[in-house]
């Protein structure tokens, strides 16, 4: 049942030009960045022979690429998640789900997985870009795997929060602006924190992504993303359930 709803979401995404435009624009921006990064690497490569332990291709090209992809996802997810529930509410189509023999949890999980499938596609394109380096060099697969995992967890957190914000309103644009604000806020919340052990660092999405970006798979960071995702999925379920109770 969850997969039926997920498939429907994916289909809805692809039946509007928005999804295709987002894919095309993201791919263009990331490819441009990737090429300039490869160029920069080729320019400095010769000097590395002097170092005992020079940074590798993966560190200099792939990790920054994933860091950028995270920023780009931050901008793209609000546009993709805004419609999930807000538009259904606006068009009064939620009744189809609410009168069907399915639970609110199934509805929310279905929508979440539908969006995750699309985000998975974006992550997949970034991975494909990194793997294309194999054409001329060897890359550090461990570092790549850490980045993929980090980006996927980050995408899940964005998707869950975006879904929750979409469930608060009947206006997709309001949901998009709200999500973007929330993502940016959580991204930079630790900017003003001077002490390294400030609790603001715990809150920041960026801080938790950084370790994955360096190739460190830290269970505390993974747990942060998983709990974050779970929290907002539960809140979205509660919110939809409340609608039935309060009207």
């Amino acid at each position, binding site marked *: *049942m969850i997969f*039926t*709803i997920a498939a*429907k979401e994916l*289909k*809805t995404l692809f*039946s*509007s030009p928005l999804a295709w435009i987002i894919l095309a624009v993201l791919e263009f921006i990331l490819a441009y960045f990737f090429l300039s990064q490869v160029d920069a690497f080729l320019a400095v490569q010769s000097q590395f022979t002097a170092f005992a332990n020079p940074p590798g291709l993966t560190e200099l090209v792939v990790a920054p690429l994933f860091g950028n992809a995270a920023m780009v996802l931050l901008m793209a997810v609000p546009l993709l998640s805004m419609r999930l529930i807000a538009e259904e509410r606006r*068009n*009064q*189509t*939620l*009744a*189809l*789900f*609410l*009168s*069907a*023999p*399915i*639970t609110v949890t199934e509805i929310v999980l279905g929508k979440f997985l539908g969006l995750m499938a699309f985000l998975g596609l974006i992550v997949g394109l970034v991975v494909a870009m990194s793997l294309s380096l194999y054409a001329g060099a060897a890359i550090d697969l461990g570092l790549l795997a850490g980045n993929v995992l980090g980006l996927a967890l980050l995408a899940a957190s964005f998707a869950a929060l975006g879904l929750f914000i979409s469930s608060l309103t009947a206006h997709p644009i309001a949901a998009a602006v709200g999500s973007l604000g929330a993502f940016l806020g959580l991204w930079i919340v630790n900017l003003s924190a001077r002490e390294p052990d400030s609790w603001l660092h715990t809150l920041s999405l960026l801080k938790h992504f950084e370790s994955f970006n360096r190739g460190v798979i830290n269970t505390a960071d993974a747990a942060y993303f998983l709990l974050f995702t779970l929290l907002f999925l539960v809140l979205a379920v509660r919110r939809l359930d409340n609608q*039935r*109770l309060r*009207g």
Partner: protein
Amino acid sequence: MPDITLNARALSRNFGLRTAVRDVGFELRQGEVLGLLGPNGAGKTTTLQMLAGCLAPTAGTIEICGIDLLEQPRQAKALLGYLPETPPLYRELTVDEYLRLAARLRRVAKPAVAEAVESAKRRCGLAEVGKRLIGNLSKGFQQRVGIAQAIVHNPRVVILDEPTVGLDPIQIREIRSLVRELGREHSVILSTHILPEVESVCDRIQIMHLGQLVFSGDWEELKQRHPAQSSLEEAFIQLTRQQEESA
């Protein structure tokens, strides 16, 4: 005694301090069309939303074929089909895709979906438009798609909220004959504020006004009780006026 397919007792619903529906009861038998009649704002839509499980009642119980809708929503909802006031249509899907989704959401087994969709299309006169996008169909066809999604899983109880609103006279006649046909195999509740509609399709009527039931019975009873009134219209006006005076 014929099977009772839907039994609602003492339903009430408050929105904040405002009471939209107060102490309303229903009994629906197999093979019966019940007309829920009332002026705009009488609480018809709220009542039907509660019967369809989209809105939780503040007080009262609802049983579908003996299964409590509030305690076992999954089993109970599988037995009902619901067309809200605004049909919950996805403009970007084709009629076939949409009906397949509706059938899957109503837990029609996968191998039976194609057959269920075909039969719903046949009954609603949609055979020719299966491949077309719902957004491009005329209002009359969209309304039929709305009815088709409500009957695609062959439910015992069909709830139709103003199924003929906004249609032209020919379409209205088609929808009415469809409702009569549905009434033979399923039990149907339909709400309307158009009096001749009730006269032509319903076996029994319930009249609501200001959130309360003011009449329940069949034609003969209504005529007997209001012998001075020559038409349904006058009886209706008198009933609602009495209610307003007593309130």
